[in-house]
Every structure is written in C-alpha cells, then in structure tokens.
C-alpha cells in the first residue's frame, strides 16, 4: 500500500492549496482560454492534417527501404530476428510447460512457494500461493517487456495474468485474481490439492496493448499433512492490555437523546492501558501481542431499560473508527440512565467496564 501512503501524504499539504483546488468544482477558472484560430491553424489542428503528414512520412520511409533493396513486408525465413521482435511475439495459448518460453533469457530461478496450512485431505482445502521474495512489480515488467510508461494509464489493468497448471490431476486451479496479485503478491492464486506430488505452476504476465509477455515458473509440491498429536492452544492473555472508554473527557460522557429517536454518536476510545495510546487498526500490536478482533466482545447495556433501549452494539465499528458509531440506542421516555460498555477478552473471560450517562429529553424540548 505504498501508493495509499503517498496518497495520504498529499492530504498534508497546506490548506490554502486545498482551498484553491476547490476552484475546480466551482468554475472553469482553471481552463486556459481557447486561443483564437485562423483557417490555417484550424487545418493544422485537424485530424486530416495529422493523417496527411503520417501518410507522407510512411511513403518516404517505405520508399527509402525498398530503394535500399529490403522488402519489409515479405516473410523470409532466413530473416534475422531481433531481440525486440522476440519479445513481442504473441504466443498461442500453451498446452504445457515445455511450450512456455519466457521472454526474458536471464530467467530467475524458480521462486519458492509455500502453501497455507493444509488442514484437509484430500481436496477441499485451498493452497494459497505465496511467492518469495516478492511479486513481479509492474515497473519491472514494464522494463522487461520494453513497455514505455506513458502517463496515467500504464497500470495493472493493461496487464493480464494467466495461470496454467502442468499436472491438473495433482492440483486444481480454482481462481486467479490479477489485481490482488499486483497489490499484495500473495494469496491470490487459489489452488486445491488433489493428491500428493509435484507439479509446476506457470504465471504468464501479458501486456495487452502489444501482446508482449513474460512467464514465471513456480514449482508446487502437494504433501499429505503429517499426523498431529492433539495440540493445546496457548491463550495469550491480552485482557489487561486494552481498555475501552466513553472518552476521557468527563463532559463527553453525558449524552442527550431525544424521546423516540435513535442516537449513535457515542464517542468511544479504545486505549492501551500502559502507554495510553489510542488503538488503531494500523497499530494493532502491543509488545508483540497481536490484537485480534475475534478475541474481544463489546456489550452495551443499560440498567434502566424504561429510559433507553440499546438497539445495537457493533464492535467492529467501534474498533475501526476508534471513536464512534458503534452503539445505537433509542430514547424511550424522559429520564437519566447509565450506559455500560463492557469489553470482554473471550479467551480468558476478563472484562473491563466503562460508563456513560444518557439523558433522554422530551422531543418538544428542542
């Protein structure tokens, strides 16, 4: 997600630049005024002029070549084939590995493949291909295929990825997600192991506009998982690491809800008890203990259900936005009641509770 980080950085530019950029959405101020054109410039700007120039150039070039005694349109088997021509040959779909030729003579060693833990046997389990050390980057492909990067659209959508399996009786190709391959380089060719053995996976990257391609050969081994002894899962106690609060500012712990209305603007914070840092999905480990959503449960309750009804408590929303939108209550009648938020560490059953006050006012009070 380098691009995402770079994109975020643009958000840090000075505010006057942002303000100025909003002009784009207000008027056409940014558009340069069209220049007045005379008849000649109208002609030179037209498609006819460009076509005429191109035709003239082509005629001269062809004439020059023929004059020099070389017929470029003839298919002579003894014509020398240049490296460039080799690279842009469009191959028909290969049937097996022996027909695959990479366009890169200095083909790298086959990359190592690991497979995700194979819990089922046989079949039923997807083997996710993880290629190391890294996926082929678009820049690398551009270079290898002699593609000149032009402007905005020299991106992954100009490439296709085709995958072939040499021995389909050993492994079955389930799906290929080319965008995911270019994004993360892993987990994006799904295979199903059918029986023990080794085979080869061929990933073919095709540059669509020219048909130039490069193939990578990846060995695959399907193994029957060893019989395991019963494993005891070690429970990492992270219950003392995280706490949940209805903010630390006392004034924010009092929320006003109107009668008959739902309210979901509870300001919630999820903090590390040690360093007091706010938890965030991108900062999700503490002292090497990885935070896992599924280890926690958050419940919102109220002891006085006649005043307010808790409609929902969405822990993923609370944890993802780090602040709000996860708890929805409905004001039933005028009054005041506590709202209790309980964070439970499921593996150990430990809990932490936070409390806010909800004041329900008559709707007419507005």
């Amino acid at each position, binding site marked *: 997600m380098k691009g995402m980080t770079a994109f975020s950085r643009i958000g840090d530019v000075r505010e006057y630049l942002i303000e100025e950029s909003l002009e784009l959405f207000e008027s056409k101020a*940014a*558009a340069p005024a069209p220049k007045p054109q005379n008849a000649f410039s109208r002609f030179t700007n037209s498609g006819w002029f460009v076509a005429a120039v191109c035709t003239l150039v082509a005629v001269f070039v062809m004439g020059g070549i023929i004059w020099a005694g070389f017929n470029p349109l003839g298919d002579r088997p003894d014509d020398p084939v240049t490296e460039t021509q080799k690279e842009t040959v469009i191959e028909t779909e290969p049937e097996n590995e022996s027909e695959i030729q990479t366009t890169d003579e200095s083909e790298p060693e086959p990359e190592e493949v690991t497979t995700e833990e194979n819990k089922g046997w046989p079949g039923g389990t997807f083997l996710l291909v993880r290629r190391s050390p890294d996926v082929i980057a678009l820049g690398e492909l551009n270079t290898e295929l002699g593609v000149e990067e032009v402007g905005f659209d020299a991106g992954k959508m100009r490439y296709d990825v085709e995958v072939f399996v040499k021995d389909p009786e050993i492994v079955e190709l389930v799906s290929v997600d080319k965008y995911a391959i270019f994004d993360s380089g892993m987990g994006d060719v799904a295979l199903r192991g059918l029986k023990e053995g080794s085979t080869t996976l061929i990933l073919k990257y095709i540059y669509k506009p020219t048909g130039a391609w490069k193939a990578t050969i990846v060995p695959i081994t399907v193994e029957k998982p060893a019989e395991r002894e019963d494993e005891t899962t070690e429970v990492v106690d992270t219950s003392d690491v995280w706490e949940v609060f209805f903010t630390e500012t006392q004034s924010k712990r009092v929320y006003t809800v109107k009668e008959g209305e739902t309210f979901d603007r509870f300001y919630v914070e999820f903090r590390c008890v040690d360093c007091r840092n706010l938890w965030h999905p991108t900062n999700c480990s503490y002292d090497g203990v990885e935070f896992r959503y599924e280890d926690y449960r958050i419940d919102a309750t109220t002891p006085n259900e006649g005043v307010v009804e808790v409609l929902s408590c969405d822990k993923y929303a609370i944890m993802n936005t780090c602040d709000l939108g996860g708890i929805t209550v409905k004001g039933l009648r005028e009054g005041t009641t506590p709202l209790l938020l309980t964070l439970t560490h499921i593996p150990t059953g430990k809990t932490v509770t936070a409390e806010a006050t909800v004041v329900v006012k008559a709707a007419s009070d507005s």
Partner: protein
Amino acid sequence: MHDSQIINLYFARDERAITETDKKHGAVCMNLSLNILQSHPDAEECLNDTYLSAWNHIPPERPTYFRAFLCRIIRNLSLQRLQYLHRQKRNRDLEVSLEELEGCIPIPEEREGELAEHLSNFLGTQEKTDRLLFMGRYFHACSVKTLAQKSGLRENTVSMRLHRTRERLRAYLEERGYTV
C-alpha cells in the same frame, strides 16, 4: 451564511452549525468521499463523522480555511474506511491514482512533516492549471475524465500534464535527498 458565522455557531455550541455546514459544504465533502469510496452509504457515514469531528475540534480550533479543513477531515476518514474495505471492494480508478503516486513520492517515516512542506512548496512553484489538476487527481481523487470536463482540457492533455508534474515532483524530491 458566511464561513465565519458558521464557525461562530460552533463556538456557541449551536447545533445549527452542523445544518449550515451541510448546506454550504456538504456537496463538496460528499463528492470527495464518493470519489474515494465509490459507495453512497459509506460516503454518507464519513460525511456524518466529519461533522462530528468538526464539532469536536471547533472550539478550540478556528480554521482559517473552513472548507479545506472539512475536506481534509473527510478525506482522512474516507481513506481509513477505504483501507478497512480494501479487501472487499476495489476502486479501480483510485487504484490507478495510487499507483501513479508510488513512483514519485517517497515514504520516509522520519521526515513526514518535512515532506508535506516540500510537497506544498513544490506545488506552489507550479503553474496554476498543473497545480489544480494535481490536487484534483491526488487530493480529490477525481478521474482524468472528470478533470478534463472540469478544466476544459482534453483527457490526453490532462494525463500528460499530470505525468509531467509527477516527473517534476520526483526530480524535486530527489534533489532534496529523498530516494523515490
């Protein structure tokens, strides 16, 4: 209502501040979020969160450029949401936009604040049209087609100008010791 009057409403803790903000700047903010998320419900949620964030920050903050202040908040919230949704949904147009930036903006964590300064200074030295196109594409996440419509230029011209601006940005940053 003028922005300063709206900000005064925030300072007075008057809930009309939100309504007035929505009336005046809701469309711009919504548009920005939609460009990033491509989903109306998600963008709406970000818009609401933006108002809440503005409510929480003003006071004590008194933004000089109120609209830019809101745009920055909704952009950050939308990006956060996008990261969360990334596995499920892909926004192809934005992905292209991200890819383009990979090659010209470095990611050194230790010089983050300095980089923002360099970006601002660089944009300040560019022609206005280039600057607006760059911000339109990489701040507002607009497609090239939309930029062409907004600016009155042809799509190819917009693409080429963006490409050249990125190249200049890369050179500018490399001169200042960044490795792109």
